Structure formats: C-alpha cells, structure tokens
C-alpha cells in the first residue's frame, strides 16, 4: 500500500507497509474462513525488540511500532 502519513523514514515505512499488508490479508483470511461473519479488528505482534500493532480497516492500515519501556 501507499503510506499516507508516517513518522518514520520512507524506506522503513514502505517496507513495513508492504510486509504487514500481506500478513493482514492472511490473518483476515484465516479469521474469516473459520467464521465468515467474523472479521479481523486488531493484530499485535510482540517481538524481542518491538511491539507492532496493526489496526486494519477497509481502506487503510494503521500501524504502530512501540518500544517496550519496561
């Protein structure tokens, strides 16, 4: 997808957007295959260094990357 607004640098943004888009499609397909009336509302991926949170919608993806502050 095309990034509309970002606070990171462009290349990172584009990379995140592209990769996460595919993941969201897969996740959404999974959720809906089980029950077509269901839909994906939020996806959270916790990794060693960051936590990535994605809120998908019909028209856009909202991606937030958070450093854990503990």
């Amino acid at each position, binding site marked *: 997808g095309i990034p*509309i607004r970002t606070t990171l640098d462009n290349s990172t943004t584009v990379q995140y957007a592209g990769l996460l888009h595919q993941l969201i499609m897969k996740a959404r397909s999974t959720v809906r295959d089980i029950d*077509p009336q269901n839909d994906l509302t939020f996806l959270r991926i916790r990794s060693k260094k960051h936590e990535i949170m994605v809120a998908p919608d019909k028209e856009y993806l909202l991606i937030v990357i958070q450093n854990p502050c503990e």
Partner: protein
Amino acid sequence: QVFDEEGKDVTPHPLFHSDPNTVVPRQGKLLASSAYFGATGSVFLSSFSMHQPSGANASLGSFSRTYGSSSTSISNASTTESILDEIVEPGSRGDTTVSLSDVQVRQEEIKEELTKADLDRRVDLYLTETETVWILDMPSVVVSVESEDAGRVLERNRIYVDICTNRPGNDRFVEKMMQTINGAAKNKEVQCDKIIMEDKGMMVTSWDLYDLFHISEIEPTSKAEGSRTTTGKSSKSHTTKEHDRTMSVSSDRGSPTSSTMILESAVLARIHEEEECHSEAVLTSENFQQDLFFMERILMENIFQPKLAAYRQFPVLTDPDVTSDTSGTVTAMKEAKQEKHDKEKKDKEEQKEAFIDPSILSGLNKTPEEIVPPRLERLWSYVCDLTNGHSVSSMVWSKVNPDLLAVGYGAFDFKEQKKGLACCWSLKNPMWPERIFQCEHGVTALDFSMASPNLLAVGMYNGSVAIYDVRSCNDAALLDSSESSNKHTGPVWQLRWVEQDRGATGDGKKERLICISADGRITEWLIQKRLDCTDLIKIKRTESEKKKLPGEKERKSEALISQQAAGMCFDFHPKDTNFYLAGTEEGHIHQCSCSCNEQFLKTYRGHKGPVYKVAWNPFSTDMFLSCSADWSIILWHQDSQTPILTFSSATAFVHDIMWSPKSAFIFAAANESRVEIWDLSVSTLNPVISLFANPRVKFTSVLFAKNTDCLLVGDSKGEVSVFELQNLAAPNSNK
C-alpha cells in the same frame, strides 16, 4: 386463396374461426388478410372480386360448417381476442352490418379491461369440443378378411402377384438406368481470429462466497454508478477486499450482468478516481478516529501495564528479554486475583478485554517473611497539560463504571479565580482525559448521578450548578443554573445526588441533587427544563454556648453581618436518608432532617474553624468524622454532643477526609503537606501511613477506590496521583 384446376376453392382455412354471428367480415381489410393468408394483395383482390358472390357464400358456408359447434365465450379468453382481432380484419366480406359488429367487438374489447373486481369475480369457463380436425390421415394398409372390401382387396392382391411373376422376361417391363448429376464440389477456406485461451486459478474461500451474497443483499444500489469499467484494470494493488473479489469474479464468471459485478466494478472505478483525495478522507474518517483511539488505549496499556496490574492486583507482567530488574518495586508477596473484567463502558463501545491472561508471569519475588511497614506506593498520576496550574478541588467515581473518575479543577486561593475545568479520566488512559468540560468559574464540587449515570453535576465557585452529559464530547452543559433566580450567591462547596425514599408519595427511590453553599442554604435542585432549586434549609447562625448570656436574645448580642452561616459540607446518613449533617464555616456541625426545615435537630460544637468535611462511617453508622481548618479531625458519636476522639497530627489545615470503603477503622486525611492514613485499630494518636508531598504542592483531596486498595490524592498542581495501599492490616468486622 388457392384454387385448383377446376376452380374449386381449396384455400387452407384457418383452424379457428370466430363466431359467425359476431364476426362480420369487412371488405376494407382485404389487404391485411392477404398478409394473413400469404397471397399477394393484387392477386388476391382480383381473384376475390371474381369470386365474390360465390366466395362469400362458400366462405360463409364454410365458416358455418367448420365451426358450427365452436362457441367460445369471448369475455374470458384474452388470447382468443387477439386472434379475433386478426380475423375480424381479414375476414372481410361486404356486409352492411359490418360497422356494427365491429363496434360490437370493439366494445367488448373495451369492456374487457379487467378491473380488480373482475379478478375476484367468479369466472365461468366453458369447455367445448371443437369439431375433429383431420391433420393427417393415413389409412391402414391392412384390411380385415371379413370386411366388405375384402374380396376386392384379395382380387387386387392376386393381380399384383401375377404381375410380379410375369415381370421378368416380359416385354412390358423394361429396365432403365438413370444417372444422378453430382454437383461439382468446391473447397472454401475461412479464417477466423485466434481464440485466445487463458488459464486462471483462484482460491475461493468461504468468506469470499459469504461476502458476495451479502454485499448484493445489503447494498444493491448504494454504490452503483453509471460508468462500468472493464474488469481488466488491475494495475494498482489495493488493500481492499472488493478488489480481490472483483478479480475473482471476473475470472470465474463470463457474463457481466449480475448486480454484484456492477457494484464491484463501480467500486473499482470509484477507487481509481478518488485516489488523490483518498488520504484526506481516510485521515478524517470516523473509523480512523476510532482506530486511533483504540490504538492509543493499547499503547497506554502497554506503557502502564505494571502499574495498572498493581492497581487491579494482578501479577505484574514483565518481559523476560527486556528487563533484568523484574518487578523491583514489589517487596512483598502479592496474592494474584485472577478476575476477568469485562469492561463495558456506558458511553463507549470497547472491543478488547483488558488484561489478557498473561502468558509470561513475572517471577514473584518471595522475600523472606519480614514485617514490612504499611506504605503508600505511587502508581501513576493523572496529569496532563490542561490541568497543570489548576488545583484539584474534588474527585468522584462514576457510580456505574468503577474505572471512570471525574475530577474538578478550580483555583486554590480565593484571590486568583480563573476558569475551571471538569475532566473525566479513565483508567485506561492516564495521559489524557476522556472528557474535558470547560467551565466559566472554578469547579468546587462534583458528583455523578446514580439514576442516570451519564449525568455529572458540577458546582462552581460563583454559586451556579451545571449538569453535563458525559456521553457526549460536547463542552456545553446540559443544564445550567445561571438563569435560576434562586441560585446560590456563594460558592457551592458540596454537591451530591441523594437517593431518597419517598414513602409518602409512593414513588420509590428518587434521586435529588442537593448542594450546600457559602450563602448558608442547602438547596435541592429540580431537573426540569431549567434548573431550579428549592431550599431545604437555611443555616442560621448559632451562637456558641460561651457567649450566650442569660436573658438576652441571641440576635442582639452580636452585630451579625448575615443571619446565615456559610455551609461548607454535608453528608447524608447512609442508612436513613432523612438525616444529614451539615458543617458550617463557624465550626458547628448541625444535624438536620429533611422533613423539618426550620430547625436543627442537634448541633455539635467542637471545631474552632470551618468544617471542611463531614463523613459518616459507612460501617458503624453512628459515628462520623469531621475535619476542619483548625488542624484537627474529630470523631463524633451521633448521640453525644462532645467529641469522642480528636486527631491532630500536623499544624496544617485538613482539607479532606474519607472513610475507607473496606474497613471501619481506616480513613484517609489530606493535610496540606501530607496524606495520612489513620487506622483506629492500630493507633489513635498517629497515622499509620504518612506521605509527604513535594514542597510546593499541597494535597487537597482524597478518594478511596472501591474495587481495589488504592487511594487517589489530588493536589494543588492539578495532579491526581494514584497510590496503592500496601500492607495495611486486614479489615476486621464491624466494631
């Protein structure tokens, strides 16, 4: 018309003939009939004119003959009518009554427009048998021996057999051969366009099918536009499901006539057209706002997770990879209460559950058993830019949602009065309030209503009372008391919604809004179109006993500025809502009753300064506590006029007190520079916990949390800090 050699009329007659009585042929329509019969017009005319007299007779005769028994009731068959039309016109024979019959038929036509009544009417259908029409007659070639023709047939057969036997060698029979002409064969080549074959694979998922069916049901026309783009446009990848679906549909189905197809291609067209302005629409769309909101909440949860978990008495989640200092602040064992909270906010929809079961539990540091003194541990504080500079004047929990807090901000000093603020904070977002209501004057008191939990009543420094609806983000008050003629002229120091039994009127529990203010009146506000109030009681000044000289009337001994004493606080009895206590600026506490608004029932004298707060003990309801500016907190019993216990620990005003909702012995007090927790079962001389504030900050209000062991403390900088009470003695049963 067709004639054979002898001039006999062998025209093929139509199988159906209309009734001769009603149908009278007209001469004028010969040409039309020629088309019907398939002969050319001129030939027909000429031949007809020749045979007219005979033809008329013959045809009439034939008419009558062929359909003698066919009588169809015209009124019912619409199809017969159409044939009737065709026959009327071509069946044209000269007759004087032609117009009449035509008109007759026409009239019947007109009559036959079916009315609704006709549809309901009982219709009679006559079934009749038409004359048998021979279409094909193949006589049998077998004749019975007993029939009359038998002899003749046998004779003929015998003759035939004789001929056959005589044939070979007979002169009368000659063999002859014929050659058929074969037409010359010709080869012709034709070339057509190459048929392009394309293979396409698609994975159909069950939700795909579900979507197709449901989109066509839900939005048949909402997005259909006139332009239909070709489905081959797939150059830009898009994150929409519709796009994917369009691709799948185009490959699977050939005919583009279904409505879903139109919808999707229209959607595709729309998407392509609006690419440029899309980002704007997205950023301002409501979905986006909502998504941002959820995201913020989740971020907050991540950031504050250990604190919030401590608040809820969950075990603290720590990332094993990130920190090595696991749960450093926990020094004692905590019991893990695994309660799943379904957070349902009354004014917002939430889709996530808070505190999903932790898969990684922090290693609970099991310190060796040591007696750890009780302490207050600071978890977090509700503060934001907006509230900086204001002083917290009051805090109250929502009655319905125990995680929603309303805080009123006003100026602390009398001299500097600025605009006030009432904010609703949620546990989920400690960095920004959920609702912000700007008020004209400093907010001095707040309360949530119980009956309609979305109403927040706010009392202000100028004496007016406003009611806000927290469901809306609107800044304006629902109701305001500025127009009321009866409003307070002094600051509203306390405000409460009280449920009262109206046994007399049989209404059941009704809720009233009661305020006390510095102009000496306790008023009850009625929520109608305008906010209006009625007085419950006026607090009269009472003399202290020392000054009362015998034989003199009270009023004359002192020059009083006003006859009323400023009221500072009140509290309704927890069990019997007819009684309440009111604390005044002169230091007296009066017990009053709602049913009597002239006199006090009792007066408790003990304080030497204005009483800032009174509070009934929620467990042993005969005792109440009061705090005042004379540096002391006094515990009273309802029946005795003298104090039972006095607590003084610092030379500072005591601004606020509150009993703990869990124990009958514990209460919290906000002195100016510190917060104290007293536990009467432990000691009555010293507070159990005492927390000092930053030097420039004064604590102004305290609030216990009902569902957890936490204390909220508001200070004069606008910060509301949440402290966790640790290691307090377990609450005993009532005294």
